[in-house]
């Protein structure tokens, strides 16, 4: 059931525990990761970005994250970010790096373009890595609890909670419908403009929507039956420990320091000499 989804480490409710990073307060982790991503998008040189990424990789190593799960995470963003990175070197004006010519067609990459692609990919990598670090060492459940205790609107938090919970149920429903279709001899795979295929797929999607809507109604009734009043009660968090805050400050010091170095770095370096 939902095998492919379950392999996606972040969705698993109970993150495997063990390292020091797993033990830090989820609220601190959430704020730190958000701030880390914001700060690292402000970095402009590839050197400081690479340092930020290196720092995150070190944290991931301390947290003993599985490399495969991280790889899977990166695969998800490849279609989006990958295309941009491939195109950038060729569309940015600047000093020509190399050039292909076939008759009238010519394609040239620029040094500026390559630099921009590198910076962009490092930024994306840093952001994905940071989010992965957060989710994989916290687990969805604690993350949602942290979000609601940090004052995120309950509707938003519940929306995420329910999306994950019912992804599997709706996924199962879809699979059963597919099996039932196949059992009556339906074969997809012909082109999408084939009338019968298109009709069948359209009806499947429509039915899935209707069923989900009806299920939503029943889930809501079941929640009302247990006294739901619009807020999901969650146990209160203990107060923040000094250890958590110190850890958060340490992690944030890295991108902050890199940013400061970028701003006035050369001056400091000169003054040190």
């Amino acid at each position, binding site marked *: *059931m*939902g095998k492919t989804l379950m392999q996606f480490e972040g969705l*698993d*409710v*109970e993150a495997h525990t063990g390292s020091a990073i797993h033990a830090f307060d989820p609220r601190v982790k959430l704020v730190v990761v958000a701030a880390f991503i914001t700060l690292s998008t402000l970095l402009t040189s590839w050197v400081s970005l690479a340092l930020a990424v290196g720092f995150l990789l070190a944290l991931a190593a301390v947290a003993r994250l599985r490399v495969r799960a991280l790889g899977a995470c990166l695969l998800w963003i490849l279609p989006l970010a990958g295309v941009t990175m491939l195109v950038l070197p060729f569309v940015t004006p600047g000093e020509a790096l190399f050039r292909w010519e076939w008759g009238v067609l010519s394609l040239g990459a620029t040094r500026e373009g390559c630099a921009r692609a590198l910076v962009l990919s490092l930024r994306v990598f840093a952001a994905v890595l940071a989010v992965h670090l957060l989710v994989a060492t916290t687990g*969805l*459940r604690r993350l*949602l609890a942290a979000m609601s205790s940090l004052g995120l609107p309950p509707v938003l938090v519940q929306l995420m*909670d*329910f999306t*994950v*919970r*019912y992804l*599997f*149920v709706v996924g199962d429903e879809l699979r059963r419908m597919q099996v039932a279709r196949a059992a009556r001899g339906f074969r997809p795979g012909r082109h999408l403009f084939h009338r019968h295929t298109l009709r069948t797929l359209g009806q499947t999607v429509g039915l899935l929507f209707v069923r989900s809507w009806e*299920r939503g109604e*029943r*889930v809501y*009734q*079941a*929640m*009302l*039956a*247990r*006294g*739901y*009043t619009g807020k*999901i*009660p969650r*146990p209160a968090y203990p107060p923040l420990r000094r250890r958590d805050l110190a850890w958060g400050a340490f992690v944030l010091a890295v991108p902050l320091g890199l940013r400061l170095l970028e701003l006035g770095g050369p001056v400091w370096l000169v003054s040190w000499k």
Partner: protein
Amino acid sequence: MACIVEIEDLHYTYRDGTRALQGLSLCIRRGSRVAILGPNGAGKSTLLLHLNGIYLPQRGRVRVLGREVNARTAGELRSRVGLVFQDPDDQVFSSTVEEDVAFGPLNMGLPPGEVARRVQEALAAVQMEEYRHKAPYHLSYGQKKRVAIAGVLAMRPDIIVLDEPTAYLDPRGKGNLLAIFDRLHREGTTLLVATHDVDLAAAWADQVIIMKDGQTLAQGDTSLLVREDLIREADLCFPLVTQIFRSLPDLGLPVLPYTVEQAARVLRKLL
């Protein structure tokens, strides 16, 4: 006769015009085990949703635990009447078993220690303690069903209402469920079960309500289940035991048995 649930002339029409309940009346005694039978579309599920104020009467009266069900009392009644839905996936929504069982008690505003105690007790009652940190989507259907029941038990309701509790359960799951019912019955909980399973009703219930077209066709003890006129009118079937003895009219039995024990007694006498 003191009724723990008393319904008079209840009407309910859905937005699409389906008239689900059309003048239903019934009375349920405290501490009884009630089976509500009736064909699909008889209004069973609609009736159940009235019992803790999810639906409010459009016409007629519903009294539960001596109190009229209306918008004002519905909130309090929800902690005293537990509803177990047919599909546990509709009910068990939290990301862990433990959290889901705690949902009701937390909504009741109980202190954390009491919530923890009740969660522990409810999970023990359905033998699901070892799964308390598991995510619901890792559980089997029968296990999810037990979690759904635990979620209601943790609220310690006086009345527990279950929609098709044995549907899709394997024999062992059904056995477990009946054992839980027995324990609750001994503790004085009133149990209401809407079902198509006439054998379950015959063996387990001490009060039977037969519904049709949004009305009560008959209510009484389990002997209703061998009355041919009722069975035919409500599109039900005879309990399996009764079916066997109906095919042996030459025995000349004055009353047809409907439970295994009754059948055994009759057979022993004949042998």
